[in-house]
């Protein structure tokens, strides 16, 4: 029993290598080395490689949504020295241009003023004494509620749709359309349905995250290497076990990156949603400040939003590296 099975595994590994061109023979040997075991260990390896094939496109997409460039480990002081120098020079130029009078302070408040405004925002708060911490907490709360609801709905639904080809065919145009509807255009409807309170904003974030997440989960399940599934079938794994033990682990990396993209979308939606009909939250903060010609507060708010976005992106990347270590390694090697 054992020898034919091992040959089969080797065969499937070779096939996978052939279909993915440019796979080094090293990994084929690795598979042959781990043969014979009844568990699906070596197959997991195939899945990783299958994942690698489309990781470049996908990470390009994720990157463009505010994910920072993967930086190589710091080899040289130049890697961080030059950027700091450029930014410092830029700030000095800006400050100088305002002081000479080339830039109007009402349009381009100088960095020194921004620093003072940041302190004011934290200590006194704006508008109506709402501190930066409160704005921050409210925005985070809205994002998390909408995001988690969307994820909780989209993952099970996407897994089923991706696994059953008939359902995929039936829902494909609907999902494509749902994704295309600009989330913020639903804002007026959300106000009719849920009033101007928290619920309308949470709904919008949920809507935006849901479709992105759903299409990513469907794509993740569909893109599981068919060789992997056939190989599992030859080992008499089928039905629920096939799904749980083979398809799901293989789809996991892409599901995770979908979750990351969805959070980026939610972050974008919240800033827009908060600009209308509220004075609490970071989006409201920058819009309110604009209305009262406090450009300095607007700019500080923008940088806080940017920092929050960056922190979320980096945090998720770290989490992904911890939960799916092979995936991070693959991504580093791939690019």
């Amino acid at each position: 029993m054992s020898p034919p099975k091992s040959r089969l595994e080797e065969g499937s590994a070779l096939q996978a290598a052939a279909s993915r061109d440019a796979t080094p023979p090293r990994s084929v040997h690795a598979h042959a080395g781990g043969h014979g075991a009844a568990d699906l260990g070596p197959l997991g390896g195939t899945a990783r490689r299958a994942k690698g094939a489309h990781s470049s496109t996908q990470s390009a997409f994720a990157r463009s949504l505010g994910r920072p460039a993967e930086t190589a480990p710091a080899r040289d002081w130049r890697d961080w020295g030059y950027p700091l120098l450029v930014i410092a020079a830029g700030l000095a130029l800006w400050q100088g241009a305002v002081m000479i009078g080339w830039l109007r302070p009402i349009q381009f408040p100088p960095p020194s003023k921004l620093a003072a405004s940041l302190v004011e925002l934290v200590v006194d708060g704006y508008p109506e004494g709402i501190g930066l911490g409160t704005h921050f907490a409210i925005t985070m709360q809205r994002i998390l509620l909408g995001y988690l609801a969307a994820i909780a709905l989209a993952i099970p639904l996407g897994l089923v749709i991706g696994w059953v080809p008939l359902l995929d065919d039936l829902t494909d145009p609907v999902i494509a359309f749902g994704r295309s509807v600009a989330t913020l255009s639903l804002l007026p409807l959300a106000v009719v349905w849920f009033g101007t309170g928290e619920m309308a904003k949470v709904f919008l974030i949920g809507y935006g995250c849901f479709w992105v997440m759903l299409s990513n989960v469907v794509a993740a399940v569909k893109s599981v290497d068919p060789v992997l599934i056939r190989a599992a079938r030859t080992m008499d794994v089928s039905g629920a076990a096939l799904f749980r033990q083979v398809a799901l682990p293989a789809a996991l990396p892409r599901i995770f990156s979908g979750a990351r993209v969805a959070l980026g979308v939610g972050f974008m939606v919240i800033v827009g949603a908060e600009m209308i009909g509220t004075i609490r939250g970071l989006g409201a903060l920058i819009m309110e400040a604009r209305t009262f010609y406090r450009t300095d507060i607007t700019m500080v708010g923008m940088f806080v939003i940017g920092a929050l976005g960056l922190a979320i992106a980096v945090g998720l990347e770290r989490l992904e590296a911890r939960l799916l270590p092979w995936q991070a390694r693959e991504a580093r090697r791939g690019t």
Partner: protein
Amino acid sequence: MSAPAGSRATARERAPKRTRKVQRMSAPADPRDAQVVDPSAGRRLSRPVLGAIGAFTVIALWEGSARLVWSDAQVLPAPTQAIAAAWQHLTVAELAQHVGWSLWRILAGFALGALAGVALGVASGWYAWLARLVRPIIELLRPIPPLAWIPIAIVWFGLGEPSKIFVIFLGAFFPIFTNAWRGMVSVSPVLLAAARTMDVDGPALLFKVALPAALPDISTGLRVGFGLSFGILVAAELIAAERGMGFLVMHSRQLGQLGVAVFAILLIGFVTLVADSLLAATLRRLVGRRMPS
């Protein structure tokens, strides 16, 4: 001239052949496996037909629940009620004007963003000193969502067209720049060295070797940037505009014509879908099979 064209053609032919070979090698003996190779094989209805059935079902469910369960067109208008309301309150010329304004803003902002993003991205991917100068500032500003620029855009450019075009420009610029830069940086050094041994250098090396190799990444950036521009456009029109599709949604809600608002929302989705597939088809023609799906 004929040599590169010939080699490209052979490369294009080779790809499908290889796929076919792999499929034959793994031709299923078990009928259950036919599903794995081609999901629609052995099914009587084709994919588009099934898709149409699915879409129709959703519309029918919406129509039914709106008329029977909620039965209030001021809460959830049925699709037919939305179309009827749009027919009643809007002339075709008005509608065309709103769509036209939105498209004009998109095209202007996206074209500027694409131009600047590709030019700067390619240039800083080619000249290391430029990247050192430009990238820190771009990386600093990139995490700020484009919508967060709306207030400051209004301060800088007023409430008119330039502020909207500026925000759309930003939405397109950042992903396009990043992808173009990354595409240029990740061009295989072997490729460049090989070209150099054939005495290709300077502008020819950039435009005939490096740039084509970076095209797939650039087109990924263009598509992502285009998708972002649409979302931003609607938000900008909701917040400050007196024309355009986003304005139409907001305005008809304020007038209490919820049916028109729903119609406009669906219209935005439809226009986005059509524009995106047009862009994808164009890029696929230009970039060919190197285009990532």
